[in-house]
């Protein structure tokens, strides 16, 4: 009988990384590892998530599986094998044959990763030429098949387009289609949905699940977003400071992690289903190459003992199958989360409520021709008919996807953008000047702004002392000594010490810089603070601390927040009231508890349905497609083109009327309230059935 030879058996472990250490040599000649002793095996068809924050080395690891290292990095030890071949020792030609073929990458920012001067069709054809045996004449046909496979509508048109003509979601799908040309055994996905809208993200993740189920392609999904990983991956590997600290099946790692870092991370993530504030994880992750010889997490770990400061824990397998790098994994489950609480109530506030009345804003500038003829540009307003009232000491959140106009509203309130119509005023007072130049000093002081990106919002040439002095000197008549005194007390209030006064932004981490930005905003003793995605650029474990700080300050000073965010979980933790926007128009506004538990407006339902939770059993509900609209429709309800419960002509022609659920909760929809409530309870029943 003919025994099957070993080499005939399909290899089961397709990615085999053994004891891999990768790093760079710094300018003093020291070797700094970015990945340390990584052991990772991925089987055929397996979906593994690589989770970590900045400095964890997750992207480096994923790329190393292809034998690729960024300039400046090199292998210090170990190997990375793909189907038995050592990728770092492979010659150029076979390496090129494998890359993009049997092992393919889907990059983080596809918009920048597709060559701008080549049409999509040409780029797909190139991939087919390199990795499939199809003749040139069959390329178009196959490309169309692949584009349809990734659910791109109108693939013929896409083939003729250039990358910059596609939306973010479309670009990502094209990248996926290109990766599939070689019928890969493994896909490496480097943060593929970062920067995409909630609904787009949900759709793409569903697509990935489908591809894995149908073709058995293994996936390595790199992300900091535990919700995305919970959805796609059956196994999770947590990286911290270049080491694997936890490796187990998703359910175990996300529900009952055995490593203190994983535990702390999960506790610090806000959840949509949970109104409580997340528990912050103190400290920050070490920079690449910075970690010492002992346990990398020890400085931040609640369980840290002397042993942890001296001895590096090995990776060992626990009874439940999880591999953990910790000296005391059994104690992790007993870590007590600090009393997590709901958003604090503000003390009696002197702050006057802020009112936005029928606000409309437009970005369109008159062209030269328009200027010569003296006419207004003819396009619909970016933001229209927004009525908002921010009560004293409360947090009102503006939520929506790209194009919702939430940042635009913020800029208009800040006076950086003149409204086309409508007004902004403090209750009972006359309207604020349209632009900053026209506002009084006291109005300017009362409204302060915190930006998204702490790297950008602080002048790189100014020390913290100068940064804080600016608002103090501008709004108050203080002596120099008083300015210094107040600056120091502000710094202490945001949990940074007086020793930060002389630091430059380049000497601080993202979280620290954002705190300085918060201190700067509060230096003015404002009534309203406008927060523009203030935690989106921060590491996950650092976000919770900043949110907590913001909440504390609000409660203490009675300030109100107008809080813009795309992250619905963050909004849930922080906001009292929520306004849902679509294409610059209000859909629903009401108390956050009501909106999250009973979303009435169809768009709110779509939005909340698409949200991911770091829970493998939570499945998002995809109620609408993920088309990104560039302009609101000329008439009627702004959501008419995507609404799953579109009612016909009325929705297209007439603006939906305001309906009042109660005195605080309003919704604009043509569908009568009673029907909406009915559908909601029916939907809930079907979910539980």
């Amino acid at each position, binding site marked *: 009988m003919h025994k099957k030879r070993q080499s005939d058996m399909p290899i089961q472990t397709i990615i085999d990384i053994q004891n891999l250490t990768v790093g760079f040599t710094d300018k003093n000649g020291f070797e700094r590892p970015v990945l340390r002793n990584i052991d990772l095996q991925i089987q055929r068809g397996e979906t593994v998530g690589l989770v970590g924050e900045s400095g964890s080395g997750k992207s480096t690891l994923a790329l190393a599986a292809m034998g690729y290292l960024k300039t400046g990095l090199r292998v210090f030890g170990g190997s990375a094998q793909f189907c038995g071949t050592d990728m770092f020792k492979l010659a150029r030609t076979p390496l090129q044959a494998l890359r993009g073929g049997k092992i393919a990458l889907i990059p983080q920012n596809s918009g920048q990763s597709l060559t701008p001067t080549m049409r999509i069709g040409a780029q797909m054809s190139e991939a087919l030429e390199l990795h499939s045996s199809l003749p040139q004449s069959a390329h178009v046909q196959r490309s169309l098949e692949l584009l349809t496979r990734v659910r791109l509508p109108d693939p013929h048109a896409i083939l003729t387009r250039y990358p910059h003509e596609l939306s973010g979601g479309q670009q990502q799908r094209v990248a996926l289609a290109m990766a599939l040309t070689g019928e890969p055994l493994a896909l490496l996905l480097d943060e593929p949905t970062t920067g995409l809208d909630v609904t787009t993200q949900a759709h793409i993740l569903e697509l990935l699940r489908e591809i894995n189920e149908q073709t058995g392609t293994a996936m390595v999904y790199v992300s900091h977003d535990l919700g995305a990983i919970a959805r796609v991956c059956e196994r999770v590997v947590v990286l911290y400071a270049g080491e694997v600290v936890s490796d187990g099946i998703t359910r175990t790692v996300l529900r009952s992690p055995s490593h203190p870092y994983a535990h702390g991370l999960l506790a610090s993530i806000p959840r949509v289903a949970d109104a409580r504030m997340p528990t912050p994880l103190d400290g920050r992750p070490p920079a690449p190459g910075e970690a010492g010889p002992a346990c990398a997490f020890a400085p931040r770990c609640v369980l840290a003992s002397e042993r942890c400061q001296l001895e590096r824990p090995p990776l060992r397998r626990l009874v439940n199958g999880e591999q953990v790098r910790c000296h005391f994994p059994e104690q992790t489950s007993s870590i007590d989360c600090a009393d997590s609480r709901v958003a604090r109530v503000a003390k009696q506030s002197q702050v006057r409520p802020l009112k936005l009345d029928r606000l409309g804003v437009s970005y369109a500038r008159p062209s030269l021709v328009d200027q010569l003829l003296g006419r207004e540009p003819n396009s619909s307003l970016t933001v229209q008919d927004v009525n908002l009232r921010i009560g004293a000491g409360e947090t009102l959140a503006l939520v929506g996807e790209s194009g919702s106009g939430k940042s635009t509203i913020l800029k208009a309130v800040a006076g*950086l953008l003149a409204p086309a119509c409508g007004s902004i005023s403090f209750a009972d007072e006359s309207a604020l000047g349209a632009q900053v130049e026209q506002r009084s000093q006291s109005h300017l002081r009362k409204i*302060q702004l915190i930006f998204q990106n702490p790297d950008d919002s602080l002048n790189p040439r100014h020390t913290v002392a100068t940064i804080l002095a600016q608002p103090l000197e501008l709004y108050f008549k203080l002596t120099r000594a008083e300015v210094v005194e107040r600056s120091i007390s502000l710094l202490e209030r945001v949990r940074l010490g007086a020793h930060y006064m002389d630091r430059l932004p380049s000497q601080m981490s993202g979280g620290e810089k954002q705190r300085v930005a918060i201190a700067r905003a509060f230096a003015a003793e404002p009534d309203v603070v406008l927060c523009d995605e203030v935690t989106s650029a921060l590491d996950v474990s650092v976000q919770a601390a900043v949110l907590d700080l913001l909440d504390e300050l609000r409660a203490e000073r009675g300030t109100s927040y107008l809080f813009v965010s795309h992250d619905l979980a963050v909004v849930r933790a922080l906001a009292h009231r929520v306004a849902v926007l679509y294409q610059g128009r209000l859909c629903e506004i009401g108390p956050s508890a009501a909106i999250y538990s009973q979303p009435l407006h169809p768009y709110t339902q779509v939005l909340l349905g698409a949200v991911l939770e770091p829970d493998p059993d939570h499945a998002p509900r995809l109620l609408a497609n993920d088309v990104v609209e560039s302009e609101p429709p000329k008439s009627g309800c702004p959501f008419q083109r995507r609404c799953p419960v579109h009612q016909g002509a009325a929705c297209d022609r007439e603006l939906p009327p305001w309906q009042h659920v109660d005195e605080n909760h309003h919704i604009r929809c043509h569908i009568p309230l009673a029907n909406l409530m009915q559908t909601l309870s029916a939907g809930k029943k079907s979910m539980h059935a």
Partner: protein
Amino acid sequence: MKRIFEVLKEVASRPSGAIGLLLVLLHIAIAICSPWIVPYDFKAISALDILTPPDAKHLFGTDQMGRDVLTRTLLGGREAILVTAIATPIAVFWGGLLGIYLGLVGGRRDDVIMRIVDAFLSLPWILKMLLLIVTFGNGIHVLIPTLAFFYGIPVIRIARAAAHSVVARDYVLAARARGQKRLTIIRRELLPNVLDALMVEGAMRWSWMLLAFSSLSFLGFGVSPPTPDWGLMVADSRTFLPLAPWAGLFPIAFLSSLIIGINMLADALAKTLGVDRAQKAPI
């Protein structure tokens, strides 16, 4: 102030910066001290000693009028360095200020002024300068303002572009939102960040100006004889060049070494400050 020292120190630590700095300082030193160290009177002609090759008496030889080439070469950079060293800061100052202002204010004013600047730049530099020189003469009191004016115009472009990249940053928006006055924003937020690009540009401007100055002298529109000047000396030496190359080569060597020195300095400065040197044709 402290920053300037730090920057200079780092520039000097780079090889190109060290050489550049050395050359520049050497030339400046020579320009200042030369009247006291030269062996001969630069005007002294001698019918006997025409076109003598370098020897013990005349280290650099003599030119076609019997004048000592060493003397004239050492003195030849004085007017050039004086004029350009004064005109460059003026050019960077006014061009930079206007450029930053335009970058901040944008809008109609920006469009109109840039249109005029473009139109101006479409005329060859030599035409513009010659017109002014021919009309008003070629004394220092004409050359300095002329050079400062014409060479400030490209600085407007650079400063405006630098300002644009800074103006879009959130910290400038933050300052605006706070209600800071425009002048304060320029001074506190823009200037410190634009200054780097301007410093590098200033060094480059100096080298272009020297080039222009010596070319003008070469053509006969710069310094008037008998004042020694490198460009003029090269022009004078042309007819006899095959017979007496030293009369032209020494001024060429001095001029080239100064310009190369400035360029190396500018390069090291750009690397130190992290500024990307714009590749542009000289004016």
